[in-house]
């Protein structure tokens, strides 16, 4: 975020007056004004390269066509982005690009996202005049743990080379040979092996570098995308989740097909690490989609309609008997700020529950750029809300707990099944909120399926203390519901401060309420 906006000047693009920041390039100014100037080699993350020649524009007073990606705007500059001359030049460049391009869009995974395809649609639609033999090159070169390079499709924009030079500084790829024989390649025996390799497939404007993880799985135009935040570390990278909404008559083997980075200069720029990119199986595998009742109490069949009533009644009975010390909570920090806030309010402020533990995944390894060692997305948020993050103490849990509310599947990773079973057996009533079908589930009386971060609304606080809101990108499977909904219903049910809860119909409202209570969240609301 730039504190002071640069001075604005007026330029003309296709005779339309457009405001542009002083010192910006023609391309950026046009993009700002909603005019798309085609480009392949230019990527906002890197300085202009000027090699693809697609962004040529006509500028009054310049004898030749100029590059939009590198020409800096001047006051009263008159630019034509669509004049006949410009279109002719772009067509010419496009023809050259396509001449040595294998045109194997049918097998290319990029088809649908491919810029070359888009530009052909926009400027080309000509018959190929190229009657010569195309240059033969490597078609299927594995260049990294999940990357496949097709040199024939490459348009030598060198985005990948520049990415590896400037962002990861590993320089795994280089341009070899020259002229028409130029090709991007790895050094023999070496491979693109860094934690950001997946970004290459994303920044490649054509299908030269494709992702093996996505290879031939589906076609990109079937996919829909939803914006979300990556929960696999505490960086909170902004991501796009691409999922298949399904065919009406045939079953599709997967739901989520790939993760893409979403631009956010304050957090993750244009990138997302390979862990976040390829670790999306948690969204689909072993998901719980039904309420499970292992010990049915009475003849009541529990549904989402009466669950808060049931829980409320149990808690009310304990609290009216002044036995709230018998309540225990096991939380985790995959919960959103709003959910943690509600939990804090209900159990700590109102019920004065003491036994609140956190069960999270163990720390991982950071890579010094985006990936943090913290593997849960919202530990910072829990701290800011006022939780004292205590690890689970099974002995404390086993002594005198009547009612246990546990969240998440992480508990099982921390203790041996035997210890867990022994400790949980001492607890009279125990309820688990989990998104997964897991062996842990059998230890609880009731297991309630809940949504994951990608499927709910809320906000997370990343390691730098930045609060980022998110909207649901996917539909939660089956009966799953987001935790905040259950918790605000429960809050209402308990009747301690029911007016407070009834005015919180959405996570957005909860966040505003949080801002009033906790100064940390106040400034984030604006």
């Amino acid at each position: 975020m730039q504190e002071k906006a640069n001075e604005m000047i007026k330029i003309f693009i296709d005779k339309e007056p457009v405001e542009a920041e002083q010192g910006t390039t023609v391309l950026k100014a046009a993009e700002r004004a909603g005019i798309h100037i085609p480009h392949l080699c230019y990527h906002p993350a890197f300085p202009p390269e000027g090699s693809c020649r697609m962004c040529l524009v006509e500028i009054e007073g310049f004898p030749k066509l100029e590059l939009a990606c590198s020409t800096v705007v001047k006051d009263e500059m008159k630019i034509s982005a669509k004049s006949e001359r410009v279109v002719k030049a772009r067509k010419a460049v496009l023809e050259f690009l396509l001449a040595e391009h294998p045109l194997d869009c049918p097998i290319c995974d990029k088809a649908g996202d491919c810029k070359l395809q888009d530009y052909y649609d926009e400027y080309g639609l000509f018959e190929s005049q190229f009657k010569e033999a195309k240059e033969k090159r490597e078609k299927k070169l594995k260049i990294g743990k999940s990357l496949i390079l097709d040199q024939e499709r490459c348009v030598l924009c060198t985005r990948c080379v520049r990415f590896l030079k400037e962002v990861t500084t590993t320089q795994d790829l280089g341009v070899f040979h020259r002229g028409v024989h130029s090709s991007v390649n790895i050094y023999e025996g070496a491979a693109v092996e860094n934690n950001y390799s997946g970004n290459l497939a994303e920044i490649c404007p054509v299908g030269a570098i494709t992702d093996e993880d996505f290879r031939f799985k589906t076609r990109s135009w079937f996919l829909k995308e939803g914006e979300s935040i990556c929960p696999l570390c505490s960086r909170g990278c902004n991501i796009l989740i691409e999922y298949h909404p399904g065919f009406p008559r045939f079953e599709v083997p997967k739901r989520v097909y790939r993760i893409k980075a979403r631009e956010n200069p304050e957090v993750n720029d244009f990138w997302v690490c390979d862990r976040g990119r390829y670790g999306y199986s948690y969204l689909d595998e072993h998901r719980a989609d039904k309420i499970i009742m292992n010990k049915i109490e009475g003849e009541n069949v529990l549904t989402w309609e009466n669950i808060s009533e049931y829980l409320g009644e149990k808690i009310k009975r304990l609290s009216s008997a002044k036995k709230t010390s018998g309540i225990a909570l096991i939380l985790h920090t995959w919960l959103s700020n709003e959910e943690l806030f509600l939990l804090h309010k209900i159990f700590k402020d109102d019920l004065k529950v003491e036994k609140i533990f956190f069960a999270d995944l163990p720390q991982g390894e950071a890579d010094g750029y985006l990936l943090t060692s913290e593997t849960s997305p919202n530990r910072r948020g829990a701290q800011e809300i006022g939780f004292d993050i205590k690890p689970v103490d099974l002995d404390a849990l086993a002594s005198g707990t009547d009612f246990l509310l546990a969240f998440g599947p992480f508990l099982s990773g921390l203790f041996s099944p035997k210890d867990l079973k022994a400790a949980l057996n001492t607890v009279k009533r125990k309820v688990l909120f989990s998104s997964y079908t897991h062996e842990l589930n059998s230890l609880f009386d009731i297991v309630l399926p809940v949504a994951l971060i990608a499927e709910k609304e809320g906000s997370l606080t990343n390691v730098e203390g930045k609060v980022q809101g998110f909207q649901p990108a996917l539909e939660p499977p089956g009966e799953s519901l987001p935790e905040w909904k259950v918790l605000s219903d429960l809050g209402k049910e308990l009747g301690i401060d029911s007016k407070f809860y009834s005015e919180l119909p959405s996570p957005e409202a909860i966040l505003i309420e949080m801002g009033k209570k906790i100064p940390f969240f106040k400034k984030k609301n604006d």
Partner: protein
Amino acid sequence: MSPEFSEKTKKKIEEIVARYPQKEAAILPVLHITQQEFGSISAEEEKLVARILGIKPISVREIVTFYTMLSRESLGKYHIQVCSNLSCSLLGAGNFVDYLVEKLGIEPGETTPDKKFTLSTVECLGACERAPCMLINFNYYGEMDPKKVDEILDGLK
């Protein structure tokens, strides 16, 4: 067994590297020396140069493949480069190359089995006034004709 420069060359390289504000800039001179010393710049030599200049081998490969004078394959003792550009071809460079092909029994770009001669056709050598011209290990020979070439090649043997 990775190759290593001789002590003398090492000193020379140090001296060359010192000329430039950045080590990397010395790559062309160093590669020239490498090619002279090892006959070619294969992967091993690339790694060696990269180590000396503090860069990645891939950067060296980029340079080696870009410039035509740097060869990744080992060349013969005598590298015959025949100009095939305009001035020379006007004056019969084509016939001259054909003659060499016949005489040496190799196509342009190949090396004789005895590793003595490598024949290449190259773009303008900058000696157009003496067309058709050729270069044998940086010695210019101009106004070539079959008779002259016979003399020169025989002199080399």
